[in-house]
């Protein structure tokens, strides 16, 4: 066959050639199957550090399973999982998920049902965690860390302002302490007006057993006088100039925390791992922890912020190995106590709380036995309905209204009404 002839034939069959190319393009999209028991695990810092700290024991017990960690930040994990859901491929075997986003993925139907395997652990783990992992009686993720909240305070700043940290019992005391700190030019806490992400607002609701919705899933934002007064409390703090106007998790925010330009951090136990590892390691010893101020004199002294879980993907061809992995890392008291020691991710596995480590003083918090405090607080986390399958949307709509309120563009009542109506029309909830 001479060249010209071949080319001519080829020209005549351009359609076939094109079809072949198309087939190739389509074929490459199809997923490659797992060939060995290598587990791919998606997680972010510090959860990857925590999990890896338990790997030596796991690999010894299961030499046939090798682990492949992929470090992806939470927002990207969710994006990739959603795209994977649309494409029907591209999932890891195991993924870390924040409790706030978990319901979205159980609804999406990409997580493996682990009801049977997890059953023996039901009584050993905090009840509130299970409600987040369960849909219609089926469990789709294994609980990991809880986010019991407390008030982290800067010892030197409090001393300078002559404030006793133990004197702050209620949010009104918090406000008064803020007034004293204002004289030193130090904000008691940082809440951005224009870039507020509504997270602190959600924490305050959680503390009162409130959320965007009630137990039935109906929107209650604009129906509770307590929610209104919570938002107005934030307004009062802004108006009195007690909140520093800095967005969370930005460079100026890190700098303020490092430089002692903020007196307290009303945040969850996991904040410790950020402070100690990279955010403010040099301020070690200058922090203390007290319970969160309450709304009424005997009200709840904590709330939950965040927390995470490990989920096995329905698509995983290594489900048995994946369960071994999850069970080892999250289901063993010794492992969970160890990871808590490594990374301040507070275990929801209650048997881990019996570890002698819980009673050790923590030099970062000036020798305080903060873990015992977190244990006490974790037992009292109120049941609230902040997280749901529509959480991301609710948070986004509320943030915008909160920003308008903070910038003085609408009243607290209007903000809640607008947010509630937007959530209703967008999510079809009543």
């Amino acid at each position, binding site marked *: 066959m001479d060249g010209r002839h071949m080319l001519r034939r080829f020209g*005549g069959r*351009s*359609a076939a050639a094109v079809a072949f190319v198309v087939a190739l393009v389509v074929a490459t999209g199809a997923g490659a199957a797992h060939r060995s028991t290598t587990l791919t695990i998606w997680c972010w810092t510090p959860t990857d550090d925590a999990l890896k700290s338990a790997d030596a024991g796991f690999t010894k017990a299961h030499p046939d399973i090798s682990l492949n960690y992929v470090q992806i930040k939470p927002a990207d994990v969710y994006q990739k999982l959603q795209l994977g859901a649309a494409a029907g491929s591209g999932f890891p075997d195991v993924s870390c998920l924040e409790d706030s986003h978990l319901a979205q993925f159980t609804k999406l139907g990409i997580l493996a049902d682990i009801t049977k395997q997890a059953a023996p652990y039901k009584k050993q783990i905090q009840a509130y965690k299970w409600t987040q992992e369960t849909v219609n009686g089926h469990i789709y993720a294994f609980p990991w860390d809880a986010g019991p909240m407390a008030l982290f305070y800067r010892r030197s700043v409090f001393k300078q302002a002559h404030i006793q940290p133990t004197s702050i019992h209620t949010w009104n005391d918090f406000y008064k302490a803020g007034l004293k700190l204002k004289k030193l030019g130090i904000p008691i806490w940082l809440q951005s007006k*224009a870039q507020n992400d509504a997270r602190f607002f959600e924490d305050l609701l959680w503390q009162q057993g409130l959320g965007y919705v009630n137990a039935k899933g109906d929107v209650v934002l604009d129906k509770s006088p307590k929610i209104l007064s919570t938002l107005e409390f934030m307004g009062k703090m802004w108006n009195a100039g007690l909140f520093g106007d800095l967005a969370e998790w930005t*460079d100026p925010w890190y700098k303020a925390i490092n430089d002692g330009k903020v007196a307290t951090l009303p945040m969850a136990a996991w904040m410790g791992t950020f402070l100690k590892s990279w955010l403010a390691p040099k301020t070690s010893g200058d922090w203390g922890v007290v319970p969160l101020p309450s709304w009424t004199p005997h009200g709840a002294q904590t709330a939950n912020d965040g927390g995470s879980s490990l989920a096995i993907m329905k698509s995983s061809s290594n489900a048995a190995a994946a369960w071994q992995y999850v069970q080892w890392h999250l289901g063993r008291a010794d492992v969970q106590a160890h990871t808590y020691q490594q990374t301040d991710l507070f275990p929801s596995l209650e048997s881990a709380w019996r570890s002698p480590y819980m009673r050790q003083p923590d030099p970062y918090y000036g020798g305080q036995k903060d873990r015992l405090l977190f244990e006490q607080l974790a037992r009292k986390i109120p049941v609230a309905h902040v997280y749901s399958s529509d959480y991301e*949307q609710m948070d*986004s709509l509320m943030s*915008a209204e909160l920003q308008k309120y903070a910038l003085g*563009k609408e009243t607290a009542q209007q903000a809640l009404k607008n947010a509630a109506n937007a959530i209703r*029309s967008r999510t079809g909830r009543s």
Partner: protein
Amino acid sequence: MAVLDQSSDSMSPAVRPTRTAGRLSLRRRATRAGWPLLFVAPFFVLFALFSLYPLGFSLWLSFRDWSLNGPARWIGLANYRALFHDSLFWQSMLNCALLFLVYVPLMTLLALVLAVLLNSRYVRLQGLWRTLLFLPYIMSGTVAAAFTFQLMLDRNAGYANKFLGFLGVSPVPWLDSTWWARISLGLLVMWAWLGYNMLIMLAGLQAIPPELAEAARVDGAGPIRIFARVTVPLLRPVIVFSVTLSIIGTFSLFTEPLLLTNGGPANATTTPVLQIWQNTFSFLRVGYSAAMSWIYFAVIVVLALTQYVLVSRRDRYLEARR
């Protein structure tokens, strides 16, 4: 096109006679026409795969409720009906309109003036200036540009406020107030697109015969008068083109607001594309986003046509020359 394809069975009756033609001549025809077809095929295949198919799919989706996984449920016009009450979507349209007013008139004027300057005999190193002005366009799509702006415009630690402080001006809440955020976004977009628009104007200027300005000068017109009475009217089609692109560009902004302001504060800089993206990938309301895309498309077409009708008058000079 089917005529040219030997193996095709879907020939229309009108062209069927070709088949009866001699085998050789048909081969020759096939070769002659088949080769160009093969060469343009990649475009059409890619276009069909990545444009035509998604277009049809999104139209199909816009009548359905789908969350990326599972069946897409037919819900008729419910998505479109809900959209008319979606204040956030219309706010995003309004944001674009405001943003358009913030930067497009200024950018167009600047692009025009710069193009005229760079086209004149008086400016040296024209190549260098053109390159410098065009450079941001190449870099603007990058994430780095938006982050750089974010760092510069940070209210507390940004260079913009440090510089203003040096001049004795009080700090500006660049990204922390609704209007300033729009202005900041406008600045970023203008910085990125000025060079591109300048280049379009420059091309238009170079197509204008120099004898016209010459004649005006002989008649005693000064440079400003020539600019206003000769250059600008002749450049009208080019300006219309540039503004049309700016309309489309402004309404399809995505990367810049996502990175610079994330649509905030208080949704002041959110754009339709940002809304479509967020509804699809964060909220998993894919059918709704598809409906949004079609409404958004319709609005842009209407805007571009309106602008075209309003601004482009028939050019008397060019008409006369024909």
